Every structure is written in C-alpha cells, then in structure tokens.
C-alpha cells in the first residue's frame, strides 16, 4: 500500500511544474545586448513620447555606474547582461489594419494556464491583463471598468493615452536610483499594468495581471503602477509562470503603488516562475522591487505573497507609511525546495503619526534550499505612536536546507512599540504520529501540516488564489520528504 502511494507521489513529483511547456509562437525578438541604441529601439517600438525616452536613458546612464550588490544571503552566479535580449513581442503586426492580432496559439497558451482571455469564458469576477514576454497581450473587462472611471490597461497603452497620469506617478515611489535592478528596469521596462482607481470608487472586481515568459534568452522587465485615489479600494492579483529551460532567465520588475487618503489597496502575488530542476539547473531569477507609498491619511496597503517558484527570489515588498494613521501589512509564505534560494521580506518605513504595520512571514525550506527572511522596520523621529508587530517562522524539512532570519529594527522615536518574534523548528513528531494514527500517509500529513502552518497567510488571499496557492504548496513539496 505504502509502495503504491509512493509511486503516485513520485509521478506527481515528476510532473511537479506543470506550466513548463513552451508555446510555439512567432515572436519578434530584438538582438541580445544592452546599450543606448537598444533602449532607443524599445522606446521607438512602443512609440513613446520624448519624456519617456529621457526617463529611460537617465536610468540607463545611472545603471552603468552601478555594480550588482552582493549583500544578500544568496549564491548568484554572475549574470551577463549583454547576453539577454531585452524585448520580445509575441504579437504579430497586421500592417494593413494597423491592428495587433492575437495569435490563436497565444490564446491557447493562456487557456492552458487557466487564464481565459475571452470575457465570456471568464468564470470568476476577475479582470485580467495578460503579459507575455515584453508585451501585454490582452486586457479583459476594460469597458465595464471604464464605466466606473477605472483605468486598467497595459503600461504601454497608458503611456499613450494617459501620459499625464503616468508621468505624475511613475518613479515617484521607486526612483530609478533606488537600486541596481530598479535602474535596469527603469531603462528597459517593456510592459506591465497600469491601474487608476478614481476618487470614491470601490473597484467591483478583482484586477489581475498574469505574467508569462515564453521566449528563450530573454528577460522580463515589466512595470506595474497602481494609483488608488482618495476613498477608493482595489484588490489586485499577480500570477506568473515560465517554461522549463536549462538556462536561467532574469525577471526584474518594479511595482509601484500610490495610496491616497482613506484608500485601500490589497496586492496579492502567487509567484510560480520555473524553479529549476532537481539538480538546480535553470530557473528564473526573480529580482523585483515592490513598494507602496501610503501617502494619504488613513490609507492602507496590504501585501500578500506566496512564493513557490523561481530559482532565486530576491525581493522586499515594502510600505512607506507617510500618511497619518496609515497601515501596512505583509503576509508571506516562501517555500523553497531542491536548490532554490530565497531572500525575501519587507520594509516598513514609519513616517506619519499613529502608523501601524504587521508582518507575518512563514518560510518553509526543503531539499538543499536556502530561505531567508530579511526585513526592516524603521520608525522615524516624527512617527509618533508607531506600532509594529512582526512574526517570522521558519519550518525546516530535511537536514540539508537552511532557514535564516535577518530582521532590522531602527527606532528613532520613544513612543514606538515594536515587537519581533521568530522561531525555527521542524514538523513535530507528535503531529505526524497523530496523522499516521488516523491513517493519513506521511506525505499527505506533511502537506496538511504545512498548509495549516501557512494558513494565517493563505487566508489573506482572495478565494481562487488561496486554492491555487494551497495546491502549489503541496505540489512543490512532493518528493521532498520520505
């Protein structure tokens, strides 16, 4: 009996990464390499205004002066930035109609991923912006959203149609000088989503972006900008997958969120980039800068992330709590298996009065992976009555993996109350024994326990995502125990 069930699990483990297929789509890829003319070419292909090109070139010049930082607890093989192609467009242009048609193969790809691009097929109440390689393929429910005044479109479209809005906010949260990858992204970013929720509007459906890398030897550099004006609310989801390839691919994105007075933004990510195979070959390098600026009073921003994919994850979604009474939240489950590495966490910068932040981080390491939590809580001199609670738990499955916690607390105010707790442990023998007694096989029991352990975070995800995330957690764990 045990043998049989093991076989089944092995099978599941073998096909663990089910999004690893490659779509055969004619893609327009520019030559590899990065220089000023590549940036001009990207800008030209997108028919961008002059100011956007200036923005890119400025960032590129700054990037050239930088060196890749080495402080994270990660082992990153050197990246050759000249060996990457910075633009890949899977849409073919119909010259006569000047219309961009969607290749049926492309439609199929997204169907296969469970992301129907035809609105009639959409089951859930979710509007999707689908991004493949460097280009937004389609954005659904645009018209319905427009009626409410909500703008939900691709970044390229926004630059054309709402240049004033984009110009006002882009780079205002993550400056191109912020870090190495922010500078790189600002120079070469190709697409992404733009969301604007007008004053007093509660977005009636979940907005979502689905990122897919398909072409080989390309990097994905998208940029997402979300602006929630006064008294508005939006819940935004992000998902991502990539084909299985032996070489590593770079994904360096920027997400900027602006939260105005009394507004609330909920940002959820289920990150499932290709993690590489069991020998540690291939996989996506996920180096992302995500930050929200709670600039309005009573504003609220909540990050929820489930990180199961990527060979290397290196990101710290953060909140700048600038407005008085603003709130930041960060809920994270990071699971690493085989040779995956993760150095992730958050930054909570308390600037306004009575600001509050909560950090719940659950790390799970299996195989030979390394999983680190790194976070910063800073309370500035004027942030009176700041309150923070952080909890970082790590779970180790196996004796060859590592789990680390590196929290930083910089407190410059006497009225702050800051609490940080961290624990590291393995799955308790008692719990496993209890499950076995009730006829639950070990693998299944571990899945159950891990899901229970991560529940606090999974509960924060919108329904459909929560189910997907739960499945992901069990799939990613297959083969790691026993």
């Amino acid at each position, binding site marked *: 009996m045990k043998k049989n069930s093991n076989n089944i699990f092995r099978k599941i483990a073998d096909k663990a990464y089910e999004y690893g297929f490659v779509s055969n789509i004619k893609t327009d890829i520019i030559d590899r390499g990065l220089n000023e003319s590549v940036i001009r070419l990207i800008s030209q292909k997108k028919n961008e205004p002059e100011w956007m090109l200036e923005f890119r070139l400025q960032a590129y010049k700054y990037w050239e002066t930088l060196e890749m930082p080495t402080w994270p607890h990660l082992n990153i093989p050197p990246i050759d930035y000249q060996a990457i192609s910075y633009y890949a467009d899977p849409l073919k242009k119909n010259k006569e109609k000047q219309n961009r048609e969607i290749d049926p193969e492309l439609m199929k790809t997204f169907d296969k991923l469970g992301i129907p691009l035809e609105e009639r097929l959409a089951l859930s109440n979710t509007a999707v912006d689908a991004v493949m390689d460097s280009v937004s393929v389609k954005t659904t429910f645009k018209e319905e959203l427009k009626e409410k005044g909500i703008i939900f479109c691709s970044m390229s479209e926004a630059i054309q149609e709402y240049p004033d809005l984009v110009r006002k906010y882009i780079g205002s949260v993550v400056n191109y000088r912020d870090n190495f990858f922010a500078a790189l992204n600002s120079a070469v970013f190709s697409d992404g989503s733009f969301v604007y929720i007008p004053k007093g509007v509660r977005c009636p459906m979940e907005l979502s972006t689905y990122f897919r890398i398909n072409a080989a030897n390309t990097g994905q550099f998208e940029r997402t900008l979300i602006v929630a004006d006064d008294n508005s609310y939006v819940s935004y989801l992000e998902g991502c997958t990539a084909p299985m390839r032996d070489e590593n691919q770079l994904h360096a994105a920027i997400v900027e969120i602006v939260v105005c007075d009394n507004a609330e933004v909920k940002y959820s990510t289920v990150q499932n980039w290709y993690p590489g195979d069991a020998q540690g070959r291939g996989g996506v390098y996920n180096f992302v800068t995500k930050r929200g600026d709670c600039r309005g009073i009573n504003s609220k921003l909540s990050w929820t992330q489930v990180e199961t994919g990527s060979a290397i994850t290196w990101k710290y979604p953060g909140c700048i709590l600038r407005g008085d009474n603003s709130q930041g939240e960060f809920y994270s489950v990071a699971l690493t298996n085989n040779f995956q590495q993760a150095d992730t966490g958050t930054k909570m910068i308390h600037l306004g009065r009575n600001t509050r932040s909560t950090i719940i981080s659950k790390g799970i390491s299996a195989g030979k992976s390394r999983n680190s939590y790194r976070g910063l809580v800073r309370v500035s001199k004027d942030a009176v009555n700041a309150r923070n609670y952080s909890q970082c738990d790590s779970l180790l499955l196996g*004796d060859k993996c590592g789990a680390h916690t*590196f929290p930083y607390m*910089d*407190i410059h105010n006497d009225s*702050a109350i800051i609490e940080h707790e961290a624990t590291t442990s393995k799955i308790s023998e008692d719990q496993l024994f209890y499950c076995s007694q009730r006829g639950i096989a070990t693998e299944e029991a571990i899945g159950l326990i891990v899901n229970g352990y991560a529940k606090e975070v999974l509960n924060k995800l919108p329904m459909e995502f929560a189910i997907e995330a739960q499945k992901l957690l069990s799939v990613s764990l297959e083969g790691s125990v026993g």
Partner: protein
Amino acid sequence: MNHEKEYIEIFDRHRQLIEEPCARLLNIEREKAFIKFKALGFPKSNDEQYRHSNVAKLFATDFGMNLGRININASPAELFTCDVPNLNTRQEFLINDSYYKGGNNKKELPEGVLLGSLNDFAESSHELLAPYYNRLAGNGDSIAQFNTSFVQDGLLLYIPRGVEIEETIQIVTMLHSGIDMMSNRRLLIILGENAKANILICDHSSNNNKSLSTQVSEIFLADGAQLNLYEIEETDNNNARLAQLYVRQNSNSRFNHCNVTLTNGFTRNLTEVVLDGEGAETDISGLVINDKQQHTDNRTLVEHRTPRCNSNELYKYILDENSTAVFAGKMLIRPGAQQTNSQQTNRNLCLTSCARMYAQPQLEIYADDVKCSHGSTVGQLDENALFYMQQRGIPIEEARHLLMFAFAGEVIDKIAIDAIRDRLHMLVEKRFRGELNRCKGCTLCK
C-alpha cells in the same frame, strides 16, 4: 580618513621598540596579524558589522601609545579601592595595557594555576600557550588584527584540569594617563577539564583625557569546565572601548557571561561563542544604561557546531537623552548541530524621542531538528502598570523608577555572586535617580 596609514607607519617605524620587550609568541602572531590589518584597514562605514558604529573616526585622535613600556608611576591602591561590601575577591590590576606586578595578594593559588602578566608567561611557558594564543582572534576582523599587532601585555589565567578557584578573581582595568591615550590589552583565559572559576572584570578610567582601549579576550573551556565571567564598564564619556571576546567551549562546559555597561562614551562589545562539543551550554546577557551622547553596540555570535548544545541570550537596553545603541545578535546553527536549543531575547526601552535603537536579532540555521527562537521589542513602560501604582499612591516618578529597576533586574539577577548583584542593583538604582553612579572608590568620586 586614512588613519590606518598612520598606524601602519607607526608600526613600521617602531617595530623594534614594540617587539623588543615582548615574548616570541606575541611577536610571531603580531607578524601575521599586521599583514592582515594592512590588507583590511579600519572598518569602513559601509561594513555591515559596523553599520551604526563609526569606529574609524575614533582613531582620528592623536593618541599616545606606550610602546616603549615606560613605567607609569601609579599605584592602583591610590586610584581605586573597591568599596563593594562583602566582596571577597582576589584583585589583579591592568593599568592601561600592562599587568600591574605590585599587587599584594597574599593567598596562594592552587598548584599549577598561572595568573599574571601574559607577556611574562608567554616567555616562560611558550609551549603551553602556543596552542591557544590568537587561535580564536586570529580570524577576527581588523580591530582584532590591530590589537594583535600592537599588543604588548595583558593578563593570563591558566587553570589546570580539575582545579577549582573559589575566590572570585577581580580584574580591574584602569586607564590612567596625563595625555590622550590608547591602550591595547589582551586577556587569555584557559580552563582545563572540569576546572572552575569566577571572574569579575571592572573597566574603570581615572582621568578626563580622551582614551581608546582595544581589548581582545580569548577563553578556552575544556570538557566540563565552568566559567562565570562578569564585566562591568564604568568609564567616562571620553572613553572609547572596542572589546572583543572569543570563547570556545568543549563538551559539557558551561559559560555564563554578563556584561553591564553603566557609564561609557563609545563602546562596542563583540562576543563570539563557539559551542564545539556536545552538551555545552552558554548563557550570555547584557545590560546597557545609556544617556547623554553615549553609544553602546553589543554584537553577539553564538555558533553551534555540535549537537545537543544549549544557548541563551538576554540583552536589555535603557536609552535616555541623545544616546544611541545597537544590538545585533546572531545564532548560527551549523549543519549537523541537531537538537540544539537556542534562545535570544532583546528588550529595549527608549525614554526620549532623541534616543535611537537599532536591533538586529538574526538566525542562520542549517539543521532541521532544532528549537531556535528570538524575540526583540522596543517600547515604553507599561501604562497600565504605571496607572496601577499611581492609584496606590506611588508618585509617577517613583513608579517609573520601580518599573525600570525591575526591567534591569532580570539581567542583574543572572549574576551568581551575591555581593556584585546587590552592588549592581544599587548602582542601577542610583543611576536612574541621577545620582553619582560610580564606585565611591574612584579618584574622581572621592
């Protein structure tokens, strides 16, 4: 900012002067350390380990160094009389960077115990000390290398296997000089199997000049050895202290350490404990009470190399006025160090809006069957407790003192020597009341 250059020049120019009075062992290690120091230089501001403590600027002052071993005409008896009641200790003095040989300890030490000048013993017992001296600090950062390069003397305590010293050994380090002075001193403490000792280190200064001391201590505990080590810093606001404590513990050894910083200028204490034998236990704690512009940076690294070891850390800070403080504690669990129990607690009280606290409790774990946790808080006194006490007629000021006193008490109570514990309770209470916080014995307080 290239102060290392100045010191490299001094070293090259006065090499003979430095090496002449010193034992061969010190000079052999000096050679290696100087090469490392030359390569490293002083810690830069972007060095993660020195992120909030700008050490390089300390070396900007033109300090005098007593490289020629000029005898300072000072008698510790005049500078210092310890007035802790009922404290029966054996007093040893380190004046600036030299062991004071004029002490009058009448009691004979048990056979085989070596206690005295490090330099003298390094000369006479080269074979005995060679496997220990600079074995732990040799891999240290540039401050450790700087110390090894310039050190000329210090204190050695060697206790052979099975010997217990009941009397507490009190090591008083005095800074005494008419000019701005730098001293580089060294402590080497070796306990054989099942040896036991209690050590109290009192760090004092008796002048108002600027002073900088680097102190590197290496402690080796063989199987089953037990050491209680307490350090109390009561220097002055002009004093900078860069202390590094390296400990290696073998099986079933016990190490209790409590480091209390009451008055200081700029202090950085690094404590690195390696648990290298099954069943070793370590308990390190610290209490910091800072005000004015005081700066205290406590860094700890507890490395578990073998299974079934326990470690416990408790650090508490009370920050007043413009003081700044850092706590960075790391627990490193090496692969294979299964069934480790490791706990770290850091609690901080900020009393003014100008005080700054930087806390970095860290875990780095490579074994799965472990129980490790850390907790860190920054906050204020409990409003409810204050209210409760006021309701019962205790004035707010008094209530605050009581609560702070209790807060600090948790660390002080870890000290196993009654007289010291009582004394510290009193000192801390005085400190909170803004009264004189020195031992009355210091020349400054007389």
